């Protein structure tokens, strides 16, 4: 062994927090690159601003609290995620405000990494939507139609685009969340690197699809079901943001429930006619349920079944036998 530790065990697994965050950044790069390709310089600068301001905010909090946590790259992940959620022509100032909100109140003031209740990037986007709603819903930019598919559906009652366009991201939307294919590629990278498994996304898909079959406006129509799944940042939320370690339940059963809740809440909010950001709000609502899921769903340890015949411990006889 070439490294050792103060306490047993004296060998440890190789990965550390910075390594995990680096893997997430790598998995987000396909979406980020495509976003920059689609929307050009403005998007690239937005991503850069988000990452930089997040890192600087965490550095500021570190200086105040006299510790050093910024080196674990989690601020970079938050910044990148927030950047990918922004609309393509978002004013730079809003990106700065959002990044500060994501790090200082939502993450650091709750106790830092591992202690926050809400997803930082998601909450920041949500705050921006509340404060600057009109600007945050401007998707015009690039060579695509003015509105993303779900908003077209909401305005006109139908959508006539091709699903392949939606899959490949040739529609308008946020910087990084419109290409379903690249999101899936990133998700596969994450799973292959051992960072997450597919429990939450599959539960969320199941929850949403079942709900939408019953309550969606188009019943079992595969075209509309696929459209709903592939748009509105739903895939980005369930494959990346819902997999954030800190805000998801820690047990497997808990995660299944959490995924189903995200799917269900997305369905409900879309049913109530807020399609574009429904997945985001659903994520935040499910985040608020994580604590109670963790408190109630505890794994049953090995060997805790009742044994029919139990020896009475106090009367262990000590006598000789032939």
């Amino acid at each position, binding site marked *: *062994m*070439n*490294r*050792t*530790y*103060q*306490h*047993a*065990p*004296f*060998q*440890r*697994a190789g*990965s*550390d*927090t910075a*390594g*995990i965050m680096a893997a997430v950044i790598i998995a987000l790069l396909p979406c980020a690159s495509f976003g920059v390709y689609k929307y050009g310089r403005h998007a690239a600068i937005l991503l850069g601003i988000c990452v930089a301001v997040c890192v600087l905010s965490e550095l500021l909090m570190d200086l105040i609290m006299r510790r050093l*946590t910024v080196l*674990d790259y*989690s601020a970079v992940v938050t910044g990148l995620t927030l950047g990918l959620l922004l609309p393509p022509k978002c004013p730079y100032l809003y990106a700065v405000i959002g990044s500060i909100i994501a790090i200082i109140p939502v993450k650091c003031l709750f106790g*830092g*990494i*591992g*202690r926050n209740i809400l997803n930082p990037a998601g909450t920041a986007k949500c705050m921006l939507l509340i404060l600057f709603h009109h600007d945050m819903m401007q998707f015009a930019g690039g060579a695509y139609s003015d509105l993303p598919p779900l908003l077209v559906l909401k305005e006109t009652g139908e959508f006539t685009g091709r699903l392949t366009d939606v899959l490949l991201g040739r529609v308008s939307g946020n910087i990084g969340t419109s290409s379903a294919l690249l999101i899936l590629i990133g998700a596969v990278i994450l799973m292959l690197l051992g960072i997450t498994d597919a429990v939450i996304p599959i539960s969320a898909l199941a929850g949403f699809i079942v709900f939408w079959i019953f309550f969606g406006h188009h019943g079992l129509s595969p075209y509309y079901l696929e459209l709903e799944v592939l748009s509105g940042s739903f895939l980005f939320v369930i494959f990346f943001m819902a997999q954030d*370690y*800190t805000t998801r339940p*820690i*047990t*497997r059963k808990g995660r299944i429930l959490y995924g189903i809740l995200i799917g269900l809440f997305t369905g409900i909010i879309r049913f109530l006619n807020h399609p574009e950001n429904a997945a985001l709000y659903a994520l935040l609502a499910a985040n608020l349920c994580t604590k109670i899921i*963790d408190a109630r769903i*505890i*794994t*049953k*340890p*090995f*060997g*805790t*079944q009742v*044994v029919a*015949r*139990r*020896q009475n*411990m*106090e009367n*262990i*006889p*000590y*006598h*000789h*036998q*032939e």
Partner: protein
Amino acid sequence: MAKLSFSGGIRPASGKKLTIGNPITDIYPEKGEKLYYPLQQHIGNPAIPVVEAGEYVRAGQLIAAQDGSPSSNIHSAVSGYVREITQTVLADGTTAPCIVIENDGMYLEILYPAESRLDLLSRQMIMDSIEKAGVVGLGGSGMPTHFKWYSAMNSRIDTVIANGTECEPYMTSNARRIIENPEKVLEGLQIMLKIFPQAKGFIAISDDQPEGIRILQDMTKDNGRIFVKCLKSRYPVGSERQLIYAITGRSFNAGMLPYEVGCLADNIETLCTVRQAVIAHEPMITRILTVTGDALANPGNYRVRLGMTYGSVLEKCGGLKNQANLQDLTCIDGGSMRGRRLTHLQGPVLKTSCGMIFSDARDMDSENESACIRCGRCLDVCPNRLEPVLLYNNLLAGNKKAFIRHYGMECCGCGCCSYVCPAKIPLSSRIFRNRDRLLDYPDLVGNYARRFPKR
């Protein structure tokens, strides 16, 4: 039924290549060297000295008698004069009363009776031999073997297991035993089977010991009562509950003992020592240690006399290579998963010692523990399906009741959670220590306080 493995667990670097090819070598203390025998090298009551300072003892002579039950006899490994009975510092830093014997280099032994034949011995004679010889569990537990077997006699034991899996990294003494003395292992198991006549015997071996598997399978192929079970090599497959589950499919929790599910497991080193005690009437005076590590001149498996200091063992097996300085090295008593840091080498080899690692690995530069990110990997690897992060939060909050409610008392201290934690939090040692501390509150922990006697 038998799945040959269990859920959870890890696959650390085994480190066994350093010593797996080295045959067991005897090393002896030299003339004039002092040997130290703590009165408690086992679970239970400390033994009571039966010799005084100035008395001459022979190798194999009883020097401390067991006191009640559970307890264990202690014998001298050399001949010489008892110098004193005094407080001595042990390897883990605690002090304990020890009988100090000065080796006169002559190795005069007590008179040993002729070897017995197993088929002529009765069960009572076998149990008496084991009790007299002071055999304790050599897989690290230190439970007096006769006490363990007596306790099991009231249950219907149908499965008896010889644990040769040796899942602890860097330790190879079991593996070498299987290669060099398989007949002793089998005889030890047959002795156990004689005590439990309704049982079938299994030798558990992990699948990274191909030579050992082949040897044992050859020797047992016509045996209708002993079977070789090749378990998937995963740490901690040798842990009692996981071992029994892997072989029989029966599971039980930490508040229960194996005989409650009809099983009994013992390390093969214990069984070899039992064989020596029953057949050759030899008391427990030697122990095989794996002395290993990349800083050693001659890593290997050494049969040492109990009572030698670790420093003496190191010197006699060739010392460090390149005149390295001990202060620069990492010295570990035991394996790399459950061992302890050695701060000095003056502690004596106990019955429960299993080896030493001397490595020039550097400590991590910064004290590397960072914040828990709730990744959940500790849950994935816990062999007992506990939630280490939850238990850790309970213990940080000082919440005893929550710790117990979340099954903290089930922790076996294997170290898997600490191994895998990306934030490098020493979860396992802290949770296990907290669990140990809670044994002082029998009203809170109930059954567990009875099940786990304090050492």
